């Protein structure tokens, strides 16, 4: 099984699907000749040509809107937002046109929007956001956020094959930092949660880039057995896996890199409070970015984004509860 980076696994998924299904094409700003701002699509132009690897005008609403049009006449577009922050520019097309189409008219919209997201590298307020909660709140959109290279490939393939609009959050801080064994060929990773590490004294529930922070924070914490649950998919949300973890562990820390209010973690906490209250041995504790834009200067950014030490401290407090 070849080892590759998270980024290479995403490229591999695109290549596999484009080879296997001529309806699949990729489109976005600077993705063809330049290979994308992060080089995720590098090499695809040479293999598949400029129709299927399309440099678009700098127009995010048009990228999503035209993808919808192509999808409803039989294509399988995969769009790249250069940074996930720019999804705000095409929010109307995504939420009002794509998200509601099947409910309103029974017309499926099989599109994928790739969203390079997350901070930690002084990207500032417009290149560091985690917009998943915006998308989760819109009916009709699926939202997935892999943390490993193997899941990045499998979830992207699953997203491309899904008949619905899927927002695929790929954390920029994982692109080259995270490596792993990635199966060859095409495979689908289910849109369900995965146990990233077993444990039964406490569970940290998170997704995306924060999975690695949570693993590091709880690796050796006063000998406690701490489970890490990687959600992988936010819509659909694997409520049964969440409740099973709470039932078996009793104490819960929920971690988001996104701003705290109405975050994915807020929804997870709500599910637990509603359906898992009797399993709890302590308060649900949350770690998230405060409701502040992600600042540019490293000292400010570190103060805002959840750090390994923040997660460790919260876990330590809850263990002692």
């Amino acid at each position, binding site marked *: 099984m070849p080892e590759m980076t998270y980024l290479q696994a995403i490229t591999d998924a695109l290549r596999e699907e484009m080879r296997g299904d001529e309806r699949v*094409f990729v489109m976005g700003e600077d993705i063809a000749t330049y290979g994308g701002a992060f080089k995720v699509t590098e090499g695809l132009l040479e293999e598949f040509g400029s*129709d*299927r690897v399309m440099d*678009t*005008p700098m*127009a995010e*609403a*048009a990228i*999503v*809107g*035209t*993808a*919808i*049009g*192509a*999808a*409803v*006449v*039989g*294509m399988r*577009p995969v769009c790249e937002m250069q940074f996930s922050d720019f999804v705000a520019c095409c929010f*109307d*097309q995504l939420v*009002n*046109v794509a998200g*509601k*189409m*099947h*409910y*309103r*008219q*029974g*017309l*499926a*919209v*099989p599109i994928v929007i790739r969203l390079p997201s997350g901070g930690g590298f002084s990207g500032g307020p417009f290149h560091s956001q985690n917009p998943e909660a915006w998308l989760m709140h819109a*009916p*009709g959109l*699926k939202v997935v956020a892999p943390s490993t290279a193997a899941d990045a490939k499998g979830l992207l393939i699953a997203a491309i094959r899904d*008949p*619905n609009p899927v927002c695929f959050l790929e954390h920029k801080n994982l692109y080259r930092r995270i490596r792993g064994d990635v199966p060859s060929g095409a495979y689908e990773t289910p849109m369900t949660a995965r146990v990233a590490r077993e444990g039964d004294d406490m569970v940290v529930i998170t997704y995306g880039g924060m999975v690695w922070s949570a693993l590091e924070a709880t690796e050796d914490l006063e000998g406690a057995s701490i489970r890490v649950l990687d959600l992988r998919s936010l819509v659909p949300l694997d409520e049964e896996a969440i409740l099973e973890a709470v039932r078996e562990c009793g104490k819960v820390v929920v971690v988001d890199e996104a701003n705290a209010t109405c975050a994915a973690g807020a929804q997870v906490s709500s599910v637990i409070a509603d359906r898992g209250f009797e399993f709890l041995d302590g308060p649900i504790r949350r770690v998230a970015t405060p409701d502040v834009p992600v600042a540019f200067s490293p000292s400010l950014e570190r103060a805002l984004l959840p750090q390994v030490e923040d997660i460790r401290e919260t876990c330590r407090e809850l263990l002692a509860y």
Partner: protein
Amino acid sequence: MAISTTTTAGGAGGDDPEARATAIAGEAPPAADADRLTIADRTGLLRRMLEMRGIEQRAMTLYRQGQVPGSFYDGFGQEAVSAGAAFAMAPEDRLCILHRDLAAHLIRGVEPERIFAQYMGRMSGLTDGRDGNVHFGDHRLGCVGMVSMLPDMMLVAVGMAMAFRMRGERRCALTWLGDGATSRGDCHEAMNWAGVQRLPVIFVLENNQYAYSTPTRLQYAVDPVERAAGYGFPGVSVDGNDVEAIFAATLEARERAIDGGGPTLIEAVTMRMHGHAAHDDMAYVPDELVDHWRGRDPIELEERRLVAIGVDVDSVRAEVAAELEQALARAREHPMPAASTAGDGVFCEGKAQALGDGLGPWSGYA
């Protein structure tokens, strides 16, 4: 045909949109294109316009009786725009239809019975009560239903055209847009993208002088048909109350599109003769403007032409009236959707089905 390419200052009436509308409206009816349209075609066009008006008049009554929930939006006085444009398309073409374009649905093959059921929030096979009365499109007939955010559907139409070109198909996408929609960014993004990629798409700008209460002089500084040149494709302005003129302009645009000649912007200059919706008395519209356009009714204009060549238009009217009474009676038999199904269908659980072809007897001129 009364088609003027607008490479000069604003076409008829110059840059003043109201003067321009008046100038176009004041022209004599253009001669019919006898080479293109048979008598049966022209009678078909009249019939679709009569059906559209008849359906909408009955629906307005149903609304006032409380049988159509929400509000009701009609295209009174604009029947020629959707009838003429949709008629020029092929069954394998794809359309994004707006809220004042009912005749396009009829041309694609949607039965009046289902339209009445849709208006009343009943099971219709169109949205089954899930979307507001005029927001529908039968995807099995190649149509995508609009959203309220205008001009979002322009981008969807451009995307369909992009897929046609990628696959090397001789097909075309068409969408309508209003004068208000020209102000939003999606309109620019769509026309720019279509121009850059020279896509087989037709934009029919339905310039009915008002976006809700806002007149065009507060919407744009220069008539938007002029913008087409800036995007690298032709813009033509036609009498929006002349169904045959719109047909001819659309047919020409379609031929150019499928031959690789790129997009066309067609401005159909017309007048919204009712308020924005049923609740709106449009007191903000000057009486003389309404009076002027009342004298240029698109249905009466086409009837005069057909009477002159011996068509019995009274019979056509009577047939349409009888057809619609029966359709409405049948529509009342459609059940209301079961409350237990309100949450169904948010996601597609099976395979994605692409849009189908138009199946109406009149959805295949091209």
